């Protein structure tokens, strides 16, 4: 997620928490890898929706990463229901990696 300007302050906080989730194969956080597409916080419903993808369909640690996102967010927003949705659209490309992510990958 390169452009976070459309996120509310609270949604940006959620993004910061998701930054603690590391892809165990590359040891880089999934926000800088560009895997998080959108975050929406619904205050009335106490619902947080996170739309994310994975770098490859065959990623063997895919649902572990998603589970980690859910657990990490829920640990701070304890009174919210957290939904992590996986999508393959648009397909992830390396261009979605942030500059920090590229630096961590050694580029």
């Amino acid at each position: 997620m390169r452009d976070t300007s459309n996120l509310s302050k609270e949604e940006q906080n959620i993004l910061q928490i998701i930054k603690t989730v590391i892809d165990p194969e590359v040891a880089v956080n999934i926000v800088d890898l560009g895997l998080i597409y959108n975050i929406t916080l619904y205050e009335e419903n106490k619902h947080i929706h996170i739309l994310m993808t994975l770098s490859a369909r065959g990623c063997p640690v895919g649902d572990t990463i998603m589970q980690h996102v859910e657990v990490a967010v829920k640990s701070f927003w304890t009174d919210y229901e957290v939904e992590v949705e996986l999508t393959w659209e648009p397909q992830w490309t390396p261009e979605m990696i942030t500059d920090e992510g590229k630096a961590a990958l050694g580029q």
Partner: protein
Amino acid sequence: MSAAGLSTKNAPSPMVVLPHYALGAIAFIIASILLFFAAGDLTTSYIGPKVLSIVHILILGWVTMIIFGALYQLIPVVMEIKLYSEGLAYASLVTLTIGVSMMTWGFWESYTAPTIIKHAGGGFLILSMLLFVYNVLMSAKRTANKTIENKFIVTSAFWLLATVLFGIFILFNVSYSWVSASSMDLLKVHVLMGMVGWFMLLIIGVASTLMPMFFIAHQLNKKCLERSYILVNIGLVAGLFLLYFFPNTAWISIFALPIFIGMAMFFKYNLSAYKKRLRKKLDIGMKLSVLAFIVFVVSVILGILTIIISDIYPIFSSKIYLAFSASLIFGFFTILILGQMYKTLPFIVWLQKYQDKVGKFTIPLPNDLYSEKVADAHYYTVIISIISLIIGLLISQEIIIQIAAGFFVLTGLLYAYNTFTIILHKENATPLKKPEFKK
């Protein structure tokens, strides 16, 4: 949590997969020890009881064993469906282990062991292969993923069946003489089907799926793979026909040309993945895999030289044929397995131990499950091993082959150390310290 299409949901039980890695590591060590004691034989001929024994434990006990285990794990990854049957997978593991043990001993002690040992071993092996092939094809039937990579895997399963059936046919033909063709000529057909039809096609399919994933390389041109598939299969069919019906005819080795071009296309595809990789620094698993591809280039060169020299300078042909075979089996296949173990086994065990602990406990990363130092060490020992083996075979020097064997044993021990360290990893989770964060 919506998780459609995730391979972990389809992953088989680790108890199906892990024993393959463990037994494979042990087989590699045994094969290396046998290589030491067969060094003398290898300077005089490329066929003989000890050589056949080593070839079979290496190809079946090491490479095939690991391939079975890895494929049972990978089929959910490449085909995005559950493995058809875990029960059949266990059965193929048991029969493979028994069959390989009997064949290896039966060949090594060819002059003293009863022939029934080899025949019974062969029976167990064919059962194992049938179970594997059936499992793979029934799994493949369910997948919607009709990609070129999957075509390679499914086709290789058919060639595996053909290889084993033909191998058993040769074994019985020695005793019962069903056809007049010599065992040597029939063996060439068997070897071609096995090395190219089974191994090469499978490795192309699996490596072409995994390497781009691990390199994090995108938008690769799959036309290379499609051409490779057609060329290798054309060469294979032509080769089998020529070797069976026109053995020992000059220049029939020309069938190998499309095979080598097909292999070059496969190399080109992975080279482009390497060049497009996002992770510039390679971890030990990928370092070893890249090394395997470098050895692959050497194999292709030696293979081409084998064809040219066997018709022009036959006296040298068995030496170069041995060097070519060794560079492929002890070289490319072995080193690729060494590398890809580090990309697969730690994750299998890590998921088993920690999947339900992520985000709740501080846990190690998959790479923390093994010793990086030990892996680096066997990276260097395997380089020394393969260089000495190729040279030793080319110049027929027993002592150099023994040195190579010694280094392979060392490589095997270091690799087995890491394999068992991973498999026997004890859970190490501590309560999570929540990150400092102001809401």
